[in-house]
């Protein structure tokens, strides 16, 4: 991108044209201007020009440096230089195209993902250093390793969790779900370790596969489960054989990934998964079938547990919704009335909830508030007419019963836009935030512009160029940029509008 450059001569011409003075006057003036600045700077004084900025002379200390080619150390002499600090107005004007951007804090979750990716990149690098033949063999070996090592890791947690099941039978349903999570976590944990193990073991799988099978057999277990566990080592060995033939490798991989996701008590089904591969190997299925029978109950229990959990959460959410409604209806009763769109039936229901549950949870104040968020989905089911329900719940969120003041009422009341400050045509690159910055002095208040123009704008992030946006006159109390609560409110609305489709 080549930039245009204008010289002082062109500057002179422009000044002359603008002020309709002779070029000579303009030229003399410009020369004298910079000569004056220069002289003052040479005296060591700063020069400040309104709307442009400040010129200053700065002494750069001598410093040591190294010649890159010879490694020789030499000193850079100290020198003076002129620094220019632009006036804040000029600075903002220049940065206009990017003014809507703000620093974003990245959440910590991304950091581990980077760390996990690294070893994955390094392994192929080490392989590349080897000769072709060796690398080919190692490819195969490492693949086998990758398949067999996670097995070792996985079998152990399985055995442990089975033991847990044995001990905690009374709480079976609830524990199942806990274990699901545990199991998944463990499966995730295995991933990085696989990669670590891969590198050193590339050459010597034979010695490693043996201990793996041993380690599985050695696991201590209750008598009931022993049968299954014994069959597992068998499977293991089969797997090793399977793996040797490359064609079947992928198939096994698939099964293994399925197993990873398969929840613990679904062990019998896991066995069923293995059956096809077994059939290929022509091994007897009798033992297998015997071991499956006592565990047929497994999936049923799992299903039962799930159903219990679902119904439990639904009940909790409904209760939460009821309390939430009861909790806020007293403080915001006016708002409720204003929401004429809420059907008669809804209000009736809410009142019912209020009556029934107020007594139970009157002390418990925080939970209903939190659950109200989840409740949105439930509300849609139980209260089919409540299209406006989710929006309303969010709008009421900041209101705490202690401080229901005039500002809060202003926040909660439905905003109507009748007066307009002006219109603005959206061009490519214009954003509502920029417009808001211009009209209201704070970009956060773009939400009100959006609210006034909802008919024209589908989504605030995707405004078609050419759209004419009306700038509403908003209550000055609402867009008080010094009041943190106004900003808070605008932020909430922002989340609401940007978050939704």
């Amino acid at each position, binding site marked *: 991108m080549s*930039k*245009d*450059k*204008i*010289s*002082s001569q062109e*500057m002179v011409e*422009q*000044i002359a044209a*603008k*002020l309709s*003075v002779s070029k000579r*006057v*303009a030229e*003399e*003036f*410009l020369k*004298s*201007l*910079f000569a*004056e*600045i*220069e002289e*003052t700077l*040479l005296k060591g*004084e*700063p*020069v*400040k*020009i*309104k*709307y*442009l*900025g400040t*010129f200053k002379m700065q*002494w750069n200390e001598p410093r040591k440096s190294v010649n890159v080619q010879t490694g020789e150390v030499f000193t850079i002499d100290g*020198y*003076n*230089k*002129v*620094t*220019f600090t*632009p006036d804040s107005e*000029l*600075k903002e*004007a*220049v*940065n*206009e*195209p*990017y003014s809507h*951007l*703000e*620093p*974003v*804090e*990245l959440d*910590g979750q*991304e*950091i581990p993902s980077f760390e996990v990716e690294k070893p994955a990149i390094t392994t192929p690098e080490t392989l590349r250093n080897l000769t072709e033949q060796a690398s080919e063999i190692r490819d195969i070996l490492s693949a086998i390793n990758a398949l067999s090592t996670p097995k070792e890791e996985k079998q152990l947690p399985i055995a442990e969790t089975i033991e847990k099941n044995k001990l905690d039978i009374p709480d079976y349903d609830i524990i199942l779900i806990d274990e699901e999570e545990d199991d998944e976590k463990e499966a995730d944990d295995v991933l990085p370790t696989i990669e670590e193990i891969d590198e050193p073991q590339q050459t010597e799988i034979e010695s490693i596969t043996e201990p793996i099978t041993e380690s599985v057999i050695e696991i201590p277990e209750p008598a009931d489960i022993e049968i299954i566990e014994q069959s597992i080592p068998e499977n293991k060995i089969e797997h090793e054989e399977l793996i040797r033939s490359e064609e079947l490798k992928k198939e096994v991989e698939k099964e293994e990934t399925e197993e990873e996701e398969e929840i613990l008590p679904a062990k019998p089904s896991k066995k069923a998964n293995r059956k096809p591969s077994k059939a290929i190997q022509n091994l007897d299925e009798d033992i297998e079938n015997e071991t499956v029978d006592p565990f047929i109950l497994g999936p049923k229990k799992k299903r039962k547990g799930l159903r219990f959990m679902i119904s439990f959460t639904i009940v909790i959410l409904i209760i939460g919704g009821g309390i939430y409604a009861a909790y806020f209806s007293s403080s915001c009763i006016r708002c409720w009335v204003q929401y004429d769109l809420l059907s008669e039936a809804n209000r009736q229901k809410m009142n019912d909830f209020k009556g029934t549950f107020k007594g139970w949870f009157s002390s418990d104040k925080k939970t209903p508030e939190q659950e109200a968020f989840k409740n949105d989905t439930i509300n849609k089911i139980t209260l089919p007419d409540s299209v406006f329900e989710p929006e309303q719940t969010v709008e009421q969120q900041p209101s705490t019963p202690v401080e229901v003041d005039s500002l809060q009422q202003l926040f909660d009341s439905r905003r109507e836009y009748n007066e307009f400050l002006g219109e603005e045509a959206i061009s490519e690159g214009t954003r509502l935030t920029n417009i808001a910055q211009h009209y209201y002095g704070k970009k956060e208040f773009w939400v009100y512009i959006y609210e006034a123009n909802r008919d024209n704008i589908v989504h605030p992030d995707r405004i078609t160029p050419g759209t004419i946006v009306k700038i509403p006159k908003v209550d000055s109390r609402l867009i008080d940029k010094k009041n943190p609560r106004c900003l808070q409110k605008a932020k909430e609305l922002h989340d609401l509008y940007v978050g939704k489709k």
Partner: protein
Amino acid sequence: MNHKELIAKLAERNNIPKPEAEKILETTVAIIKEQLLHGTIIGIQSFGNFEVRKKEERLCVHPATQIRTLVPPKLVVNFKQSIILKEKLNDVKL
């Protein structure tokens, strides 16, 4: 030296009244600003260049809290002194 002093000096040098000097100075500044907004480089002979440069977005890590922040790109005005001016400045101190 502040704005007023500068205007006074300029008026004296050019033998023009102060208000006029102020007017011309303001126009000059306005033109510089306008050109900068267009992305044009303004070269003033024997003084230096004014230029708008883009600072790319970057990741920075808070050293104490380890919070990573994505700093958005921005446009800044850059002034680079001419070699003539630099030599003059050096002469002064030496």
